């Protein structure tokens, strides 16, 4: 027994050390580092000088320019989440309840686009939504549309782009939640005279709330950190926090301010994840999320 224990104390650190070191060194340390520089004073000539200041945080919350960016970001996040719920629910229900032989194929078709580069998928939307794109060709067939509609560069374009990319993150947890509701419950309800919408409102919706919450948190948190989609489909009109961070780092070299925006966003993300884990641990782990 003693021998096994001594072997164990040697083997276990050997197994766990590489992951722990890589993540500590390349995730934790850089985050702490930008946390530190977010309290330095910005200098146009030296990037920052060693003077402690809260200015970078004050500016974020009290400058009208940044408040507007925060508002756009929050709005995009909320509408995207709502759209993913609306589109995701039928799909999740279909995947959870279907007895089709091809169900594995349908799940493959849902998940595989996640692995295709975001840039390519947004490129596709730019082609589709452009003035000569397919969508405009259809719109022009309508009697009330006389000239091509400029969709790109507007809020709806950004929301379409983000929600089509993030939809699977909503569908997967919802699908698990619906799968865990016995089909017999729905049947019992409709045998007792409930119509489809009553079954949905009184049985499905309440019982699938854990899935809805996981999916919504996931979609919301990823969408508010979007950079590529607003950069390609929204700018200059639709500017989100991601774009602002990018510009502060690579255009105006205001790294302390970029640091403070990042820290605020990460703090927000982790607070929501933490609350989620605390309240809903029984429904699923962080793995599921």
């Amino acid at each position, binding site marked *: 027994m003693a021998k096994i224990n001594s072997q164990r104390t040697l083997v276990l650190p050997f197994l766990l050390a590489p992951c722990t070191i*890589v*993540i500590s060194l*390349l995730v934790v340390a850089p985050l702490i580092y930008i946390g530190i520089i977010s309290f330095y004073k910005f200098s146009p000539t030296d990037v920052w000088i060693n003077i402690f200041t809260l200015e970078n945080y004050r500016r974020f919350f009290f400058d009208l320019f940044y408040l507007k960016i925060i508002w756009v970001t929050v709005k995009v996040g909320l509408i995207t989440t709502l759209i993913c719920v609306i589109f995701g629910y039928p799909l999740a229900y279909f995947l959870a309840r279907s007895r089709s032989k091809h169900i594995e194929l349908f799940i493959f078709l849902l998940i595989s686009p996640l692995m295709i580069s975001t840039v390519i998928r947004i490129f596709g939307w730019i082609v589709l939504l452009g003035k000569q794109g397919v969508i405009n060709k259809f719109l022009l067939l309508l009697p009330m549309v006389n000239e091509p509609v400029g969709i790109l560069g507007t809020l709806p374009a950004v929301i379409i782009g983000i929600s*089509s990319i993030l939809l699977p993150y909503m569908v997967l947890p919802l699908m698990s939640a619906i799968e865990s509701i016995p089909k017999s419950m729905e049947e019992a309800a409709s045998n007792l005279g409930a119509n489809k919408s009553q079954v949905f409102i009184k049985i499905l919706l309440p019982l699938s709330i854990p899935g809805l919450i996981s999916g919504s948190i996931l979609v919301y948190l990823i969408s508010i950190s979007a950079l590529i989609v607003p950069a390609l489909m929204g700018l200059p009109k639709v500017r989100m926090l991601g774009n602002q961070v990018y510009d502060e780092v690579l255009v105006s070299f205001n790294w302390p301010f970029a640091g403070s925006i990042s820290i605020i966003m990460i703090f927000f993300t*982790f607070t929501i994840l933490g609350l989620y884990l605390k309240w809903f641990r029984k429904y699923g782990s962080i*793995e599921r999320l």
Partner: protein
Amino acid sequence: MNLILIKKKINTYLFNALVISIYAFIWAPIVIIVLSAFDPSPDFTFPPTGLSLKWFFSFFSNEMFMTSFFLVSLPVAIGVALISTPIGVLGAMGLVRYSFKGRNFLETFFVLPMLVPEVLLGVALLLFFIKLNIKLTLFSLIIGHVVITIPYVVRSVSVSLHGVKPMLEEAARMLGATKIQVFFKVILPLIRSGIISGALFSFIISFGDINLALFLTGPDTATIPVHIYSEIQWQGDPTIAAISAIQIIIVGLILGIINKTFKIRMTL
């Protein structure tokens, strides 16, 4: 009665149509890019005007794109898979095979790179590298990608490991195998599919990443997605559609392989 049946049928059709249109919402942008890549017309028209490979030839004769594809994107993705797979395998073994104090914490810690928004991780790494005087080379990009792919390897290997019965290990030990022999001759073959899919996922994620690459590449080390990104901003021709189509096909093939050996749903 008949009327009810007809109504039911119509409802089913409507529901199926809804499901198909939701799939179209996900797939339309991908399909249109592949169609444009094979269309001879330069202005992304629909429906396609013909079938041509000219944009693919244009890609293969463009030195900048070729360098970026064969000397940046591919070697980086292969390097990432080679580095993050062994690290992730060890981590998964530690998490699944042993129970110890702080195991729950480490489990969450190992998915931390997935929880930090990628854009912000990119910013943090860039500033950190500048501070440490690490130049933006292929190497800096590889370490950035290793971080974000480790959680995928840990997860897919963990799933495989959960399927290996501890009994098998004990049996091998009793028959006189050493710990190392048990690992290489018993465990490794049994978790092979998990390791392979972890490695392939790492490859794909590195190959398609833009959020980290945007910050961690220099002018000479731009990956294919970074090139596509800047070409879109400059209104490039369908050559980038051809590159995109090639990426889509590569990713599709790899996912097909993963799906064969390993249920894709278990890793995500």
